[in-house]
């Protein structure tokens, strides 16, 4: 937070409650850090945070970092079982949550024996004995309390970000302080972000590219407009115009929604100078229409994964002739493609993307098997490189083109979706005999989630029942858009469901 101290009067975050300066966030986060330390948080202890995008969440997670802890930001639409899983998987000591999420947080906290306290933002709901209010902590101390020296070095963990795994159980990606600083520097450098920028984040801070908007904001010293979601697109566009936003980071779903509501006759969007797209490639037709809607903006097509934040970006000057490419490696990162034996493949041949550099994660929390599968020794003895599971090919100039996955994971609304995780939830229904989840091409979302279920005959199985069950068990982005009920699923000779023919 050095940049915060240099310009403490500048607005760091704008949210629905108003503008918040760097100085204000610095003070709030220090008070919270001091309290966390007094509550027993030591270097490396995990603190889970669950709240919609807002300045309070930003102050809280910086407080965790200042206290020497590890932040674990989870999606505010996470349901009880998943939150319980995360709390126990990372053995969280403290849980910070918005009071409005009590219906999920209270039962999850009751099943997490390692938790010593729940810190509530907004007010304290009944039902949790070890509760304390964030506002009490951060306002109560008239003096700015001292934060004890933590002893942290840059190879200590800063964050664990949970992402979907092919086994159906989420995996915690461990990022060190070095990862975070390096990645924030790399991304903000190639995008050319400056102190006078105003960057909007409609992406949740539980999503790495959302989180990095705030991390880069603090590093560079620009202002971040935090939006709670993109549920009200016109409302967001109105605030983008009002606050003269200069940078709009998004994923294909967000950009296709923006296009579907165009034109914006009453809004002045001319302040936008940079659009960045990540998670999945934009359809070329959408790129063309975005350039018409924002003629003064440069569009960066990017690619990345939580395990190393970002991988590549396409120089906007090459957008016209390389329109379907996600470009080349970001600064201080090397990428190459290998076949199934780990041998590099020539241009034009599909191979698995391997990433090496300071951006690559430490591993998956508490999961040495998966870590060993994704982080393997590279050319240099002892150096671990990231096998991404993403299949790419390059052209003669080395530009990268996404082809597919080595497993059945796909991205929907920018987030990784594990068919297995959804299938496990579907099988919980007594009415479901068999279930298969696949990604289907979708105009709005790139890929949409489709669930095909076969009834057992025990009770009536309909779309409504399936959707309602999914909503109660899964984060909102994982709820299938399409649900089909069939009498039979195609099988291989060995009896495995044949997803390719669905």
């Amino acid at each position: 937070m050095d940049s915060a101290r240099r310009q403490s009067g500048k607005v760091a975050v704008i949210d629905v409650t108003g503008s918040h300066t760097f100085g204000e966030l610095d003070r709030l986060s220090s008070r919270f850090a001091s309290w966390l330390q007094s509550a027993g948080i030591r270097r490396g202890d995990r603190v889970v945070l669950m709240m919609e995008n807002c300045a309070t969440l930003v102050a809280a997670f910086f407080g965790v970092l200042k206290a020497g802890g590890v932040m674990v930001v989870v999606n505010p639409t996470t349901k009880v079982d998943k939150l319980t899983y995360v709390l126990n998987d990372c053995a969280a000591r403290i849980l910070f949550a918005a009071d409005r999420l009590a219906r999920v947080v209270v039962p999850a906290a009751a099943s997490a024996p390692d938790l010593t306290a729940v810190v509530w933002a907004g007010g304290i709901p009944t039902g949790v004995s070890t509760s304390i209010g964030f506002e009490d902590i951060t306002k109560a101390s008239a003096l700015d309390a001292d934060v004890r020296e933590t002893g942290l070095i840059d190879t200590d963990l800063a964050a664990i970000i949970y992402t979907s795994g092919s086994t159906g159980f989420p995996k915690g990606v461990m990022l060190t302080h070095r990862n975070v600083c390096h990645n924030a520097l790399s991304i903000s450098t190639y995008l050319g972000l400056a102190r006078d920028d105003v960057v909007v984040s409609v992406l949740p801070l539980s999503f790495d590219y959302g989180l990095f908007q705030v991390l880069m904001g603090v590093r560079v010293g620009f202002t971040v407009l935090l939006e709670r979601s993109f549920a009200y697109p016109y409302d967001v566009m109105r605030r983008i115009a009002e606050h003269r936003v200069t940078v709009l980071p998004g994923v294909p779903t967000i950009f296709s929604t923006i296009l579907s509501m165009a034109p914006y006759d009453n809004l002045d969007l001319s302040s936008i100078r940079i659009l960045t797209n990540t998670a999945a490639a934009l359809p070329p037709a959408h790129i063309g229409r975005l350039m018409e809607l924002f003629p003064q903006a440069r569009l960066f097509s990017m690619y990345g994964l939580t395990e190393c934040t970002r991988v590549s970006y396409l120089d906007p000057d090459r957008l016209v002739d390389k329109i379907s490419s996600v470009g080349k490696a970001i600064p201080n990162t090397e990428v190459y493609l290998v076949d199934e034996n780990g041998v590099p493949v020539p241009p034009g041949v599909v191979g698995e993307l391997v990433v090496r550099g300071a951006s690559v994660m430490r591993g998956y929390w508490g999961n040495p098997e998966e870590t060993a599968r994704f982080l393997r020794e590279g050319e240099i003895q002892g150096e671990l490189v990231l096998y991404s599971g993403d299949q790419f090919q390059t052209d003669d100039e080395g530009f990268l083109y996404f082809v597919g996955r080595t497993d059945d994971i796909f991205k929907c609304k920018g987030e990784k979706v594990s068919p297995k995780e959804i299938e496990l939830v579907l099988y919980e229904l007594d009415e479901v005999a068999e279930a298969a989840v696949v990604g289907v091409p979708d105009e709005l979302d790139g890929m949409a989630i489709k669930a095909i279920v076969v009834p057992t005959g025990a009770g009536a199985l309909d779309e409504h029942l399936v959707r309602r069950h999914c909503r109660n068990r899964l984060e909102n982005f994982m709820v299938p858009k399409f649900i089909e009920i069939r009498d039979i699923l195609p099988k291989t000779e060995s009896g495995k469901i044949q997803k390719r023919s669905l």
Partner: protein
Amino acid sequence: MTAFSEAQGSEPSAGGAEVLSNDAVERAVKNYIVESFLLDDGELDFDTSLIESGIIDSTGIMEIVSFIEETYGIEVDEHDLVPENFDSVSRLACYVVGNKRSNHSEAL
């Protein structure tokens, strides 16, 4: 009162035209949200922010739009899709009743 008009939250008036009552629309919208997005009835207050409480996201909003369009025969202009109109049961009810009323007076 038919089962259908009960679902709509409308009450038959003397002239045969149906007048929407705010309370009835609130109940109908709440029932729909509880039934589609939550299991336990008691947890949704009329003033709860649907976004902040993590109950719905952008897809959920579109489903609520379809629900009120189909149930009340109104058309939601995309510029109306703002939290002031949609972010709680009571705001949704006000929006539906207001929209219905203005359509009604236009028709006259």
